[in-house]
Structure formats: structure tokens, C-alpha cells
């Protein structure tokens, strides 16, 4: 199987608290790779370490290695890395500008493009995020006027606009209503045709619905990893079993 991202012995601590404890995990190309775990298990820190958002905060101490396409991410420029590994946050965070400018934000950062090319990128990204039809006529409207679910899909489009290889979604539906939630879940199965998807969630049924592979993270350690079907039908670890059957503490 083709791994896009590998972590080897990855440990992260902040002010002497161990957040992640020597993780070895693999993220497979064109699959939905889920990081499942209860709150406080280190899920968000893990993906922030992968795109080096942890660099922004001096408190983190990181040891071990993260490989992206077999390159150590510390040897890459953070800007280049973040362009290749996009991220969508827990609550929608549109910039204070039009829908068009939000989606075009990333491409504009990385060089000036002719208007026609930019139009094309905005249209493609919004289409891939399943939002284009809804906002086709309103591209110049403020993104703040969209509903929460639309804002989140716009944030997905914004991340896709820079043509990443991987897109990481950090509990992307936790602040959304059920309909918006199911739209985004449906989206993941189409996204994985073109991108590698990493989904962070504590929602067991969501993980079961959309994942191809699951890494179960508990108190900073990967307790179990494997194919989604296998893990949900036949958990090998006792804590995993408790968690996925809803009996975890």
C-alpha cells in the first residue's frame, strides 16, 4: 500500500506534559484515514504537527520523524509543506471577505495569476467542495453571510484551491447541523478520489460511516490501527472496544 505520510517514533510534549507518545502511523493515498479518539487524546496536536502549525507555538517539543512522500518534513519549508497538506478547522473560519476572495486567497499567495485562471480555480474548488451550485451567483457576497455548513464547505474549497495532496479535516462537522454534517460526510468519499483525506473525529458513527482506515488514539498513544471494517467489527484492544461500543470512561 502507498503511504503518503508516515510518523516514526513521533512524540510531542508541551511544558513537560506528554501529548503524543512515540506514534508510528501511516496515512494511505486516496483513502479516508481517520484519527479517532476521545477529547484530549492528542488528535488535533497530531495533525498540527503534520503541517507544522506547532512551529507557531514555542511550547511544543517534538522528537521522532514525520515523513511526507518519504521526505522528512523538517527538511521542507513550512510554507511548501502546508501548501501540500491542506487543513480545515473545527469551526468554520472564513476570512472577512467575499466568497471568491476567500477561495482565491491561497492561489493569490503563491503568485499572481490571470483573472481567467483564478476564476477557473475558484469554480473547480467550489465544485469539488459541493458548494458551487449554491453560491454560483453570489461569489462577490461576503462569506460571513453563508450558513455554518456552507461556510465549512467554503473552507474546504479554500483548502482545495491550492491543490494539496492531502487534506486534513479537524472535527469538521462538530459545530454543524445534521444535514450539513451528512453533506460533508458524503463529500469525503468523492474527495478521496483525488486527494488523501485525514479525518480527525471523536464521533464513532461518523468514523464508521466514512473511514477506510482508522487509527485509534488514546492518551497520546495509538492503541489500534487498521482497516475500518475490521476495527469496528472486531476490535482487538479492550479500550478500543469499550470506546466504540460507547462504554469508555
Amino acid at each position, binding site marked *: 500500500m502507498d503511504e503518503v505520510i508516515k510518523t516514526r517514533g513521533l512524540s510531542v510534549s508541551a511544558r513537560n506534559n506528554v501529548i503524543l507518545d512515540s506514534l508510528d502511523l501511516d496515512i494511505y493515498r486516496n483513502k479516508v484515514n481517520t484519527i479517532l479518539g476521545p477529547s484530549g487524546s492528542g488528535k488535533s496536536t497530531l495533525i498540527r504537527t503534520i*503541517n507544522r*502549525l506547532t512551529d*507557531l507555538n514555542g511550547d511544543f517539543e517534538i522528537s521522532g520523524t514525520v515523513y511526507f512522500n518519504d521526505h522528512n518534513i523538517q527538511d521542507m519549508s513550512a*510554507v*511548501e509543506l*502546508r*501548501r501540500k497538506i*491542506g*487543513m480545515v*478547522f473545527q*469551526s468554520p*473560519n472564513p*476570512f*472577512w*471577505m467575499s466568497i471568491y476572495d476567500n477561495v482565491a*486567497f*491561497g492561489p493569490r*499567495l*503563491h503568485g499572481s495569476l490571470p483573472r481567467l485562471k483564478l476564476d477557473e480555480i475558484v469554480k473547480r474548488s467550489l465544485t469539488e467542495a459541493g458548494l458551487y451550485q449554491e453560491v454560483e451567483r453570489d461569489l462577490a457576497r461576503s462569506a460571513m453571510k453563508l450558513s455554518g455548513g456552507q461556510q465549512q464547505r467554503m*473552507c474546504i474549497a*479554500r*483548502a482545495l484551491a*491550492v491543490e494539496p495532496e492531502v487534506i486534513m479535516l479537524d472535527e469538521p462537522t462538530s459545530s454543524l447541523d445534521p444535514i450539513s454534517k451528512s453533506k460533508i460526510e458524503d463529500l469525503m468519499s468523492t474527495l478521496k478520489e483525488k486527494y488523501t483525506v485525514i479525518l480527525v473525529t471523536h464521533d464513532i458513527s461518523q468514523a464508521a460511516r466514512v473511514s477506510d482506515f482508522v487509527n485509534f488514539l488514546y492518551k497520546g498513544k495509538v492503541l489500534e490501527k487498521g482497516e475500518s471494517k475490521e476495527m469496528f467489527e472486531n476490535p482487538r484492544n479492550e479500550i478500543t472496544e469499550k470506546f466504540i461500543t460507547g462504554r469508555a470512561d
Partner: protein
Amino acid sequence: MKYENGAVRKRMAFDRGMEAIGFFIVSLLILVVLSIFLFVIGNGLSGINIKILTTDGNTTSGGLFNAIIGTWLLTGVGLTISLPVGLFGAVYISEYSNSRAGSFLKLFADLLTGIPSIVLGFFGYLMIVVYLRFGFSLLAGGIILAIMMIPYILRISEISLSNIPKDIREAAYALGADKYKMILRVLLSKAKSGVIVGSVLAVSIASGETAQLLYTAGWNNGLPTGLTNSEVGYLTYVVWQGINQPSAYSHQLAFAAAFVLLVMILALILMSKYVQRGK
């Protein structure tokens, strides 16, 4: 009222009492503001005519043209200096400094707002007018106004920058933005209205200042001819001088100047409200 008993009734009475006191105080405040408006409008409006607005004057005769333009020029120079300084300071405090240095700088800015304007004026006279040999002038007055404007622009801009959630910054970084691009394209576009509000507040306070300008701008019966060593007239000087003169026309000029100032400041505040709503 089935559940009503003595204790509840007492609390409700207390609540109504507090509401009445609050209402009384707010009404008092509105009354004070309205009476100032009525006083200035009542005395100023009758003295306003096209001739007064378009001819130069010397506070006892003529008009207000030189004073109006002088006030605009002085606050204009003040804003030209204080806006970039205040904005850079705000960006530095909110995005670059650690929290200890940040609090120190904020304290420093707060202290600056507390310096009495007459002290600032005297300092300006010694440092800028005499030592730097700028003379009583547009630049001397503008610099002194800028010193008092900076903390307003800095503090309000800094607050609107700090209020932007961390998420928004991270979203820009996650798209591959460098820090300066994140600040320029995301933060400043969002903090714009705060910067405008801070600037308007600073301009309206500055255009109403007198004491520090007495020491740095002087007075001119016409318009200044350069940035340095050429005195400038301004509206608050007309108010201050005109009231002291024993002539009815001086009084008319003083009230007209007060009226023009009030209208200018109100217009600025309304404009900033409009900009805020437009966001």
C-alpha cells in the same frame, strides 16, 4: 402571582429601584449632552454665513476660513504621523511582542493619554519649536497632536487585532501564508474598521485641542506658507480668544467656530459609524 412571597416582592422592588436609578442617570447624561448642543447651536447657528466661512479673520474681525483650514491641516499632519506609528505599534504588540513586552507598551500608551495637554504643549515648545528650530508651525503643532493621537489609534487597533480569533491566523498559515502576508491580507482587512474608529476618535479629540497648540502652532491671520516657521490659525483658538474679547462680533465668531467644530466632529463620528455598519 402564585409563588410570590415577601422575599420575592422585596427583590422585585429592589430591581425596579435599580432600573429607575439607571434610567435617571442616563437621562441626566442625555440632558447634559443635549444642552451643550443646544447652547452651541443656538448661539452659533445665527452667526454662521457664507462670508464668515470663506474669509480669513483675526478673531476680532473677518471670518473663520484660515482657522478652519488650519484645523484641518494640523489634524491632517497629526494623522499622517500618528496613523502609521499607531498601526505599526498595534501590529507589533498584538503579533510580535511577548505578553510582558506587550503589556509594558500598552501601559506606556495609556500613560501617554494621561499627560496633561498643557505639559505636552510646553514640551513641544521647548523641543520642537525652539530646539529643533521648527518655530510655531504646522509641523510643530502636527507632531504634538500626533503624540496625543498615537495612543488612541494604537490601543483601539490593537484591541481589534487581538480580538481576531487564533483560528483565522492558523487558517492563513495552513494555506501557506508567511507571517507578513497573514497580517497584511487577513488581519488588517478585518481590523480595518477598528483602525478607522480609532483614527476618527483621535482626529475628533485632536481637532478640539487648544493648550498644546498655543505653544506650538501660534496664530496666523492667513494661511501658513510652509511646514515650518510659519504660524497656523485654528478653530479652538478663535473660541478661546473670542470669548475674552469685549466685542459682540468676537463672541459671534467664537460661537460660530464652536459650531463648526461640533459639526465637523459629529460628521466624523457619523462617518465612522457608517463605515462600521458597512462591514
